């Protein structure tokens, strides 16, 4: 990666107001940043403009895609294009390699809104095998 790419990768995920950010947002930051540093995965969302609302138990964050950057914002979105809701344990299982279809069919994870937007998000939610690659 060139120096320019390295700087870009570091700026692709931003946490809004970290001192007051939700625990969910902080937990998600690492996975999202590692995956967004992967140019192949990043290419799939670079042009995405959307709010995706994620709720784990009572914790709610909005993943705001715009201008090639993903900003993790505390709280719900006024106009989410997609929504994901479930227990924290279910999300962790998805993140650590479990598929998402099973938890959805079992009712552990509920999805709503534009499924195609969610499909673009999905690769960013798995723990990267080699971050930044």
């Amino acid at each position: 990666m060139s120096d320019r790419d390295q700087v870009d990768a570091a700026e692709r995920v931003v946490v809004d107001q970290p001192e007051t950010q939700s625990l969910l947002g902080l937990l998600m930051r690492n996975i999202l940043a590692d995956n967004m540093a992967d140019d192949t995965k990043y290419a799939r969302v670079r042009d995405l403009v959307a709010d995706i609302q994620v709720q784990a138990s009572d914790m709610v964050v909005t993943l705001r895609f715009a201008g090639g950057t993903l900003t993790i914002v505390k709280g719900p979105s006024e106009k989410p294009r997609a929504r994901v809701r479930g227990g924290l344990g279910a999300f962790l299982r998805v993140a650590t390699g479990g598929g998402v279809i099973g938890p959805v069919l079992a009712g552990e994870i509920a999805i709503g809104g534009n499924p195609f937007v969610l499909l673009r998000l999905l690769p960013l939610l798995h723990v990267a095998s080699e971050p930044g690659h």
Partner: protein
Amino acid sequence: MREFLEQLLGTENVLHEPEDMAAYREDFTEVEPVDPGLVAFVTKTEQVQAIVRKAGKQGMPVTARVAGTNIGGLALASEGGLILDLSRMNRVVEVNADDMYAVLEPGVTQQQIKDHLRENDLPLTLGFSLAPPYTSVALNALMGGLTNRSLKYGDQSLWISGLEVVLADGSLVRTGSWALSDSAYGLVPFPDLSGLFIGWVGTTGIVTKVVFQLWPLHPLNKRLFILSYGIKGTYDAMRRLCRTETCDDIGGLSWPSAKMMLGVKRPHPEPAAGDPIFFLYVDLTAETVAEMAAKEDVLRDVLSEVRRGGERFEAPLEVGELVKVNPGLAAFADFPTDLEFLTSHGGGGLTWIGTYGPLSRFAEAAEAGSAVMARRGFAPLIVSRPMRGGHFGVLRLISIFDKKDADEVRRVRELNLELLRLLQARGFIMYKTPAWAWKELAPKIDPGMLSLMRRVKGLLDPAGIMNPGKLGLD
């Protein structure tokens, strides 16, 4: 004194220039820095004896220390006094695997003993405190500190089965069975003279060897995290789990600790809406898979029982899975650990009101303490663990601050005073007590006990050279 020390130890083992002694003049806390006069590195008991005799003749105060990380200024010298650095007195003198005890010099660190036992294939452990790996095992125990075996076995001082101590006149004593037997199996049947040196923060003698009882290390280990949405539920679960006698360790940590592990240097005093308020970590160990499964069943049953009372928890999560998601949580994956986030926040300041008290009052004390901390602009960082089967526990209200900001230092001193009074009013007692806190405690201590402490101190240190000013008795 300097010439004497240099002749005894070699000039390379004596510090006298202020810039060389800078690391010894202050600690993490808001306690005022103190400039020592000399720092001496010792490696042998005979050196400690000679130095103490000389210091006694000259009336020079002596403060012994290893890492100096206690939160309370207890390892700071008296002005112009001598610091006896015991960090190089670090031999694992003996490990008796059959009778499960180890003889350690005071400089032996947590990581060192862990490595030693592992390298020698000994399935034994001393447990580990939350202090960094480079801190002294012995000094933690001598100050009544705890480890991740304290739920089962009490504070670490209870595992001491013998001491070797240099008294203020330079004489050497042994306590415990090894004063007579070739086996350092325990303290009984002698009167417990070890108690003259435990909890006295070096004001009655300098300990040069500690015999520790070791505990079995089981082959299967699991650490589980349970996010909790209420303080009451957290401590209800903690107390109920204690009664099942299935856990090796239980920790209750408030939400700022999770955020700090995840990279937020100074969390806001209020939690985010919807966030869990506490997390419990539970350590389970077992000899067999079936035993581990049975213990996990007990844990789930306890959580279900507490949930039926209206409390909310997430399902238990294995720490390994959490660390995969965010490596910042690795700080809690294995012990000993370095909770760097407590001091690497730029301001460098770390202080707490750390107390022991009755577990039945933890919820109320944690609620009240959290409210005070938030009102004063500090995130309510709380660490709590039950000890000795749940008879009591440790409740620490922790504050981080900027040591270079005089106003923040003032605010944290005011906060600590208010928290100390709040907890004391609820029956909690500060451990590893800083000198400033003794002024609050001493007037309330049973006069007979205080008088006896003064008499013991006077008997063992008539010249008053042993870490003076640290126990509120001077």
